[in-house]
Structures are given as structure tokens and as C-alpha cells.
């Protein structure tokens, strides 16, 4: 099942050229960029592993692409996303986030029902490989 979260996730996967262009756009806005990865794309899994610190004061997208390439080399079968942080409100806020790498076989999300007291139903999503 194709996981859709963040920008562009209903589009076909971005090429490296398109990723570079998006990063250029972010840098042009003065946003810092962080690379994050995970193997669990559950919607409640908000905090992914950070691939190094977010990168501040970059002038060119190449710096981000280098980190992304390193991350892809280390985790080819993980989800990788780029987060852009906007600091104009005095704190670093994620203002744009998009997936740049997916595993070949994506896990699916399965809904499970549990019956609890008073026959009420509890619903939960579970990632299934």
C-alpha cells in the first residue's frame, strides 16, 4: 500500500532533480532542512529518526542532497523524508515535509477492532508487513 503523508505524496515519486528544485525553493525561503528516516510509516509515528542535525545556513541544495545520498546508502529500504523548518515565528516549525525514499515493498495499514466494556468498539491501525 502506498503511504501518503506530507507534500507530493499523491504524485509519482520525485526524481533527484525535482528534489533538488524543491530544496532550492526551501533554501530560498530561508528554511533549515533536516533529513529523517523510519521503517514504520504509521501515521501516529510522528518522530522519525534524525539523520544528523537539521542543516542551517546552507546556500545550495547540494549539501542536502549529499546527506540524503548518505542516508539512502545506509537505509535503502526505509522511508526517508525531508523536513523544512521555518523560524520566522521565533521557533523552528516544520513548514514543509515530503517523502524522498520508499522501500520496495511498502507495509500496509490494517484496522483492528477490539471490543471492550459495554460492547463499545475500539479501533486502531496497525502496520503490517
Amino acid at each position, binding site marked *: 500500500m502506498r503511504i501518503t503523508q506530507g507534500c507530493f505524496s499523491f504524485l509519482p515519486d520525485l526524481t533527484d532533480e525535482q528534489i533538488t528544485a524543491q530544496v532550492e525553493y526551501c533554501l530560498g525561503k530561508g528554511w533549515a532542512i533536516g533529513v529523517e528516516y523510519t521503517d514504520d510509516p504509521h501515521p501516529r509515528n510522528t518522530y522519525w529518526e534524525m539523520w*544528523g542535525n537539521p542543516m542551517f*545556513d*546552507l*546556500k*545550495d541544495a*547540494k549539501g542536502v542532497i*549529499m546527506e540524503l545520498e548518505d542516508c539512502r546508502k545506509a537505509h535503502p529500504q526505509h522511508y526517508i523524508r525531508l523536513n523544512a523548518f521555518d523560524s520566522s515565528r521565533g521557533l523552528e516549525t516544520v513548514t514543509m515535509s515530503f517523502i524522498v525514499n520508499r522501500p520496495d515493498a511498502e507495509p500496509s495499514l490494517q484496522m483492528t477492532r477490539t471490543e471492550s466494556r459495554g460492547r463499545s468498539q475500539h479501533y486502531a491501525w496497525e502496520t503490517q508487513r
Partner: protein
Amino acid sequence: MAMPEALSNTESLPTSVDLAEEYKASGVAEILDELDRELVGLKPVKQRIRETAALLLVERARRAMGLSHEPPSLHMSFTGNPGTGKTTVALRMADLLHRLGYIRKGHLVSVTRDDLVGQYIGHTAPKTKEILKKAMGGVLFIDEAYYLYRPDNERDYGQEAIEILLQVMENNRDDLVVILAGYADRMERFFESNPGFRSRIAHHIDFPDYDDQELLSIAERMLSRQGYHFDSKAAAVMSEYIVRRRRQPHFANARSIRNALDRARLRQANRLFEESVGPVDAEQLSTITARDISASRVFRMVEPNHPEISS
């Protein structure tokens, strides 16, 4: 069968390039003029920059016409004594390379050993990489680059930074230009012990010391930029100061002049404060007199008879 293909190939490419037109359009002329106007002296440096600009322009024309071309290696080394304008020229160089389209952004990241080399094991690589990421698309200017290499300590982390630098200089030639700067003799020794650097650096530019006349005109420019000027006698005292200062240790060309002028302004302010009765006018406020300069310790110092012993 190959014929039509070849024809269509040549059709899409221009068959001639007007170099003068390219030169004008690229905005290189403005930078070179600015260089001539704003930097005093440095004849050989300007000449080298002109030559480099011409080479890059021709390379670009060759690329446009589809002639075989190897992307030129642009890493440089600037050697010369302190205060001879290496950083200033590096800034201009970044602008020049940007206008010629050899680097994408044209900013200058100026670093020293402390910015690249870490304090403990595993600290150097991320630190160096962070700087390199910031420098991508621009020029990385490493001042006093020879401090990266410490031959007396083989476990020095500088070696790690050097290896990362060399790798990036080779693999990311399109992404950034590295300029190494420092004293000529120590740079020479640095290259001897790191042949990898020498073979990756195509342009060696040597910055000569300024002569006394050039330093005086630098002083006058610095003052006028700050809205000050010498009075008639002060200029003569200043040129005397330059001659004497040069014989003192730690003479740093234009930087020494700038410091001397800063102190002269301090003395001028003090003099005005202590001596003026009644209102002072703009002329008084912006004039450096002979007394402001002649109070310098340089004039009170005994001339060393054996400079090689005293230094």
C-alpha cells in the same frame, strides 16, 4: 546513416562565438574594472585574475560550441604576507566565478583550522562536512591552510580533515571551489608534505608586499571611506610612519595601516576632546593632523641595528 544525425547536431550548436560580446554580457568586465579601481597595486595578482578570467571565458565558449572540453580545475592557492588582500581578492574571485557560471551561488565561506578540525575522535568529520555543505555552490576559503597539517603529531585530527577535503575537491569539482591561503614558504612546505593538494590545485597566485607609496594611497582611501582626511602635513608624517613601521616586527601591510589609522582616530578624538574650547566644526572633526600620527610609538622606538636578531 550517421550523416543527418551529425548535421542536426551541428545545427543546434552555434558555429561561432563573439568573445567580446560574451565578455560584456557575463559582467566580468565590471568585476575586473572594480578590481583595478578599488585595489591598490597588486599588479601580478590582477594580471593572473585577468588571465584566469580569459581562460574561463574561452572554456565556456568551447562548451557552448560543443568542442571537447574538460571542466577546468579551479581550486587555487593564494600565497603572500598578511594584509596583502588575499581575502578581499577571494571575495572578488567568488563573484567572478559566479558570473562566469562556474559556481552556482557565488558566496564565500571563510574558515580556519578551528572550523574544520574537531576536539576529539569522531568530531572532525561531521565538523568538516558541515562547513563543506555550507560552502556548496560557492567558494571555500581556508586561511592559513598549513595549520591543518601538523607533522609533529601523527595522531592529529587535521589529517582527517585533509582527507575529506581532498575527496570533496576531487568529486565535487562542479559544486565548490577551494582556495587555500597563507604565507608562501609555509604553504610550500605544506604542499610538499601533502602532494595530493598540489596536484589538485591548478592556480597558484602570489601576492606581493605593497611598497610605501601604495600603502600611503591605501591609507588615504581607507580614511576617505570613513569620512576622514589628512591635513597637508599629516600625509608626509604618514609616509614616514610607513617606512618606520615596515622595519618593526609583525608588519602586516594594509592591516597595519588600518590599525594605525584606528589609533590615529582615537588620538584625534582625544585631542579634540581635551583641547577644544567652544564648538568644533565638521572640518575639525574629520581632519587627521600630523600630531595624531606622530604620537605613535613607532616614532619613539630606537631603530634596531640588527633586525635579524631582534625579530
